[in-house]
């Protein structure tokens, strides 16, 4: 029983982290039709900026509030200065462009921070482990689960219940039609891209106490996030949530029960789902 509860919590915590990264990736695809390879680098940027904020202020919580908007602004500026000019091209060009951006950002972080990983301690409130169902479980991981649920709910409510959310959904459905109806498409795109980067930045700050901030963390997470988004269906927030749960569970339980498959289980699950549902669980046929 204790083992089961622990493994369940492990899966949920990892799923939470994956959701924070993949939600933005999915949004950007749904609304901008861009496969953003640089998304993982914004996650990494969040983790490193989180380290700096903690180092300067001595506190963890400000990092959680300050870093996402900063990463969001960086993302929005990059969108407005590069991506904006090539939306009419086939999607593969946007992938190439974001790959170029990822290289630039990744290396810039290394120039600024050096090659050594940067550790952040969780805030004192979340330090250490507590007993749950006969097992010791880190408080910080429980916080991650709560945080990702809250963010998921907030994003969903924003898209469903606010006027801005309505405009965004309209652009996602049919950008030309939305344009005719007076939506400022360029602005919507920049805002959405910035918001998605802010989400990735938030994921990075949240991940840092668990994984430290290190070079290559962005590349490592982007592949996982792609898998999550594809399993869930591109552009769907509930899909990202389902995909995160599936990948989180596959990775933790796979590592526990089928250790020899740990390298590949995520891809096997994605392959199996796509063979039966070629557009993902919540996606629509194009």
């Amino acid at each position, binding site marked *: 029983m204790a083992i089961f509860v622990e493994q369940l919590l*492990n899966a949920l915590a990892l799923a939470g982290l994956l959701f924070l990264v993949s939600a933005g990736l999915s949004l950007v695809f749904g609304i901008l039709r861009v496969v953003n390879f640089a998304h993982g680098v914004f996650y990494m940027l969040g983790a490193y900026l989180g380290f700096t904020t903690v180092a300067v202020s001595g506190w963890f919580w400000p990092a959680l509030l300050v870093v996402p908007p900063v990463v969001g602004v960086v993302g929005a500026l990059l969108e407005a200065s590069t991506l904006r000019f090539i939306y009419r091209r086939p999607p593969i060009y946007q992938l190439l462009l974001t790959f170029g951006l990822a290289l630039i950002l990744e290396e810039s972080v290394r120039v600024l921070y050096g090659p050594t990983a*940067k*550790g952040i301690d969780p805030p004192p409130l979340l330090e250490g482990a507590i007993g749950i169902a006969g097992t010791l479980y880190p408080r910080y991981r429980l916080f991650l689960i709560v945080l990702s649920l809250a963010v998921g709910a907030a994003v969903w409510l924003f898209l469903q219940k606010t006027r801005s959310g309505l405009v965004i959904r309209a652009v996602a459905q049919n950008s030309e039609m939305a344009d005719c109806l007076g939506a400022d498409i360029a602005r919507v795109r920049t805002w959405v891209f910035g918001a998605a980067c802010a989400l990735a930045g938030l994921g990075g700050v949240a991940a840092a106490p668990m994984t430290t901030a290190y*070079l290559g963390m962005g590349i490592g997470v982007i592949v996982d996030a792609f898998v999550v988004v594809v399993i869930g269906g591109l552009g769907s927030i509930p899909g990202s949530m389902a995909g995160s749960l599936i990948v989180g569970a596959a990775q*933790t339980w796979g590592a526990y029960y089928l250790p020899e498959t740990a390298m590949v289980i995520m891809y096997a699950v994605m392959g199996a789902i796509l063979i039966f549902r070629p557009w993902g669980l919540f996606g629509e046929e194009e």
Partner: protein
Amino acid sequence: MRRREFLKAGMVGGTAVAVGGPFVLRQADAQNPIKIGLPTVLSGGNAQYGTQAKRACQLFGKEVNARGGILGRPVEFIYEDTGADPATAVRKAQKLVEKDGVKILTGTVLSSEALAVSAKCPEWKVILMSTINGAGALTAKSYNRYFFRVNTSGPMGARAVSLYLAEAPMKRFFGLGSDYAWGRDSVASFSAQIVAAKKEVVGRDYPPVGTKDFASYIGKIRQSRAEGCYLVLPGQDATIFLKQAHQFGLTREVKPIMEIVELENIKAVGEAMVGTIGSSRYPFTVDTPKNRDFVKRFHAMHGVYPDMFDGETYEGLEWLAQVMQKAGTADDVEKIIAAWEDSSYEGLEGPFFMRKCDHQAVQPGFAVEVVKDPAYPHPVPKILATYPGDRVTPKCRTEEFV
């Protein structure tokens, strides 16, 4: 010219300058220096190792050239980034050999890179001097006479820890190694020796390289009721594991034992790493007069304390210089090989001897513990035991011990 065409022209011109410029600079550097090539990792997740090799070269180069060089010739290092990819490593090594004319390669980081480059050395007729690569196969199954290993190998590290643990009270161990050659071979080597010491290995697991969540493995280790966990994880993975094990409270129940205790890990993990034991290929706290002086000079130049491969690379270069002096040549590879075989060298950490039979340097092995020391800004490896070279070096061209 319209704006867009102007920009295009500018781009082409800019590229031409970027490509052509350095060629001109390099041509000016005459006077026939001794060139040493480093196809090493300077970008991406393993860049810390290439950076260490480079730091050691910078210090050695400055010092040796201030003394008039080797055989009266200045020493020049040429660094090439392999991006931790063996294909690129071979390409860069080939460029260093064919274009720059280097006779000595060093600085290879990954075992796969070293194995690929080493296999090409007989064809190129150049020496590959390992100061980082741990794979036992390099001086065993894949031995060739152009490959020299100055550093402590993976099996030697496992041996040093096992010798220490054989006398420690712990009885039950878990082996956790990254899922590649180094991790699997080291866990196997460790297990064999622990069993030989009449102790028990209660579990083994091999997480993939780049694992970012070790929670499942931590759960397994805890259930195994092991007293010690032998960890063979590359830098970043080890950092993440130790952080998470600390958060789960695992490190209070299970003693972490690492095949390599690196400063890079200690700095990233912080106080949570205090109490960890393991082996170190070069602990900078070795108390020899030569090492004390080296640490001081290194710190003065780089502002940090030397990590494992800073020390090992410096030792390799110093030994190589000594061999070149003895051989009276820096170009005749066959003579350098002959002079190096069965030669001795007094290193930072103690006496070294280059075995002729497999080109593995016999050298002391260390068991260390991470402790806090007010003299340093971060915890440091304290030496628990030093083993003489003949006890920690495997039988010739094998990965086994007597």
